[in-house]
């Protein structure tokens, strides 16, 4: 059974220029009979979300992700097409929506809950739990205008998660609060999943999407470009829009006395690949061109997760692999054997610089994306060498 069915959904906005809507503006358009410019945020998207599944929506900024959520939530009216949902639907789109700055934390809990459709009796019953979750015991009697922005959002989230929806829509709200609070939020999302709720969620945190979703939709310029297994879709997204050739995220700089020409990621059989298995081999082949003789160059690399979290970085100097000199074209190999990354999407940065770090010849930041799939049971981003001993 499908919890959400979206059919040929289109949404266009009239572009009104920079001016807010005014009577004069409308009259002028009536007189000049100019057709208003139209921006197509969604150009006919169809998808289903089966009940009890978690589906993520990814895509570059302005691609129509939030519009899709708004249309499913019912806050936006479609230009054409239909959205069918079965079950109670709630959204974590705006935390603390409708908070009144002059009212106290407690008063706002009731108000916000009413707006989200949580019955008063249920809030009264769960009040302690809500306050506990927000961690704002000492402040709930204060007006929320005295709160920091983090406190504000924490209170909003604490109320919102008390909803008991069948379908939960989440829009990039997990990037709030301190780390401890974010972990609490993610736990609560997992609890929703265990309870068999249907989740539709938009995020730029690719690692999180990868971890939580059963299926991922990739939206670009209002079209559904790809859908399917999270690792594959996220890889496609990264390759098309973020990696080599994509304008997002990446940067490149250096004096180019040595240039990185071509980089290939190869698996254990030496085949070029983008998706690798944990525990197997990843070999990176770097073709470079040194325009003159360079003494003692250093090759370096670093890895980040899909969320942009810096995992590891090292170079030939740290790893005790001194290079005498390079000149002309050549190939440098970087080998991970076994690959200890477990699961997710990663960005590889490469650089070649002088022995004293004074000159950066060529650095490509987050240029090479790849994915890792993990067939084992272990959890997390990478495997640590560890062992158990029973005395």
């Amino acid at each position: 059974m499908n919890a959400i069915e979206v059919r040929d959904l289109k949404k266009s906005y009239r572009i009104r220029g920079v001016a807010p809507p005014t009577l004069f503006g409308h009259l002028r358009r009536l007189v000049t009979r100019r057709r208003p410019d139209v921006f197509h945020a969604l150009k006919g998207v169809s998808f289903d979300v089966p009940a009890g599944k978690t589906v993520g929506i990814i895509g570059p900024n302005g691609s129509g992700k939030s519009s899709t959520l708004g249309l499913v939530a019912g806050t936006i009216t479609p230009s054409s097409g239909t959205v069918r949902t079965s079950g109670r639907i709630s959204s974590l789109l705006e935390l603390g929506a409708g908070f009144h700055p002059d009212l106290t934390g407690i008063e706002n809990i009731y108000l916000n809950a009413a707006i989200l459709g949580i019955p008063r009796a249920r809030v009264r019953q769960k009040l302690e739990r809500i306050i506990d979750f927000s961690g704002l015991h000492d402040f709930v009697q204060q007006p929320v205008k005295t709160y920091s922005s983090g406190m504000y959002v924490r209170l909003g989230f604490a109320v919102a998660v008390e909803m008991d929806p069948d379908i939960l829509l989440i829009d990039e709200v997990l990037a709030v609060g301190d780390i401890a609070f974010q972990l609490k939020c993610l736990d609560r999302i997992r609890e929703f999943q265990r309870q068999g709720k249907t989740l539709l969620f938009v995020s730029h945190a690719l690692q999180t999407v990868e971890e939580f979703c059963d299926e991922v939709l990739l939206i670009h310029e209002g079209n559904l470009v790809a859908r399917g297994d999270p690792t594959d879709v996220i890889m496609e997204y990264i390759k098309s829009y973020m990696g080599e050739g994509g304008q997002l995220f990446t940067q490149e700089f250096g004096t180019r006395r040595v240039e990185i020409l071509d980089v290939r990621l190869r698996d254990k059989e030496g085949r070029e690949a983008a998706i690798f298995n944990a525990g197997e081999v990843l070999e990176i082949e770097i073709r470079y061109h040194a325009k003159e003789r360079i003494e003692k160059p250093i090759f370096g690399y670093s890895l980040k997760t899909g969320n942009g979290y810096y995992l590891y970085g090292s170079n030939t100097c740290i790893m005790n692999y001194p290079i005498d000199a390079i000149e002309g074209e050549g190939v440098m190999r970087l080998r991970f054997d076994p690959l200890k990354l477990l699961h997710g999407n990663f960005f590889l940065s490469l650089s070649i610089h002088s022995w004293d770090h004074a000159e950066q010849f060529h650095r490509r930041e987050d240029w090479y994306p790849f994915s890792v799939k993990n067939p084992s049971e272990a959890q997390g981003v990478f495997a640590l060498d560890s062992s158990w001993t029973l005395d």
Partner: protein
Amino acid sequence: MIRSAIEHRELIANLVIRELKGRYKSSLLGFLWSLLVPLFMAIIYVVFLRILAGRSVPIEEIIIGVFAWQFTVQSVQGGMTAITANANLVKKVFFPRILLPISSTLANLINFLLTLLVQFAILIALHFLLGIELSWLALAVPLVVVYHAFFNLGLAYLLSACNVYFRDTQHLVGVLISAWFFMSPAMYNLALVEAQAAAHPWVMKVYMLNPMAPVICAYRALVLADVDFPWSVWSMAGLLWPVIFVILSYFGFKRAQRNFADML
């Protein structure tokens, strides 16, 4: 409309509480202000009208008129921004948008009911001081209040939706409302209009088509023993056309709300 209001009564209650609590939250006198403001207004009008127009000005009629007028003014001002002031709510959370003008009007209704207590206290004081005759018909005032609130609700529907599409509404309404104030028998009574209209009988007819005229007259006729309601086809028309107006604004709002999220 009524069904959705009952279904969401908790939300309405919370929005009304937010409105009322928020309004005076950080002021020293707090809720007293909602009683003090119309009281001061009435005193100001009475004092200056006495200076300008002499001793014949009927204090009790002005007090009733000004209090009733304040209810409409506050409903118009609150209703007008009911949607625009809650833009983030409307854009992000789905709930019937119609609840916003409803709760704004309800908050002002509650406020008005409290000021009615002050008003009656003043009128009873005037009864003993100046010998003003009060009528037992005053017990029927709640009926007029309900009707008056219903009319204000229609204004809130219309203006809240208009203000989303045309922000000019706020400024335009500010101007129109002062014209409307002078066209309504708030700080004078009907006798003044009748005197002016003696030569042109049509003036009186058109005058009564302004719904605020029969509404304020109804308050006075019920409360004061020696004031009669100006029964005529025109005053009845003035009372009845708002019913159509409210229904139309309701459907107008329903239609307009589809684009609220896009326009905000």
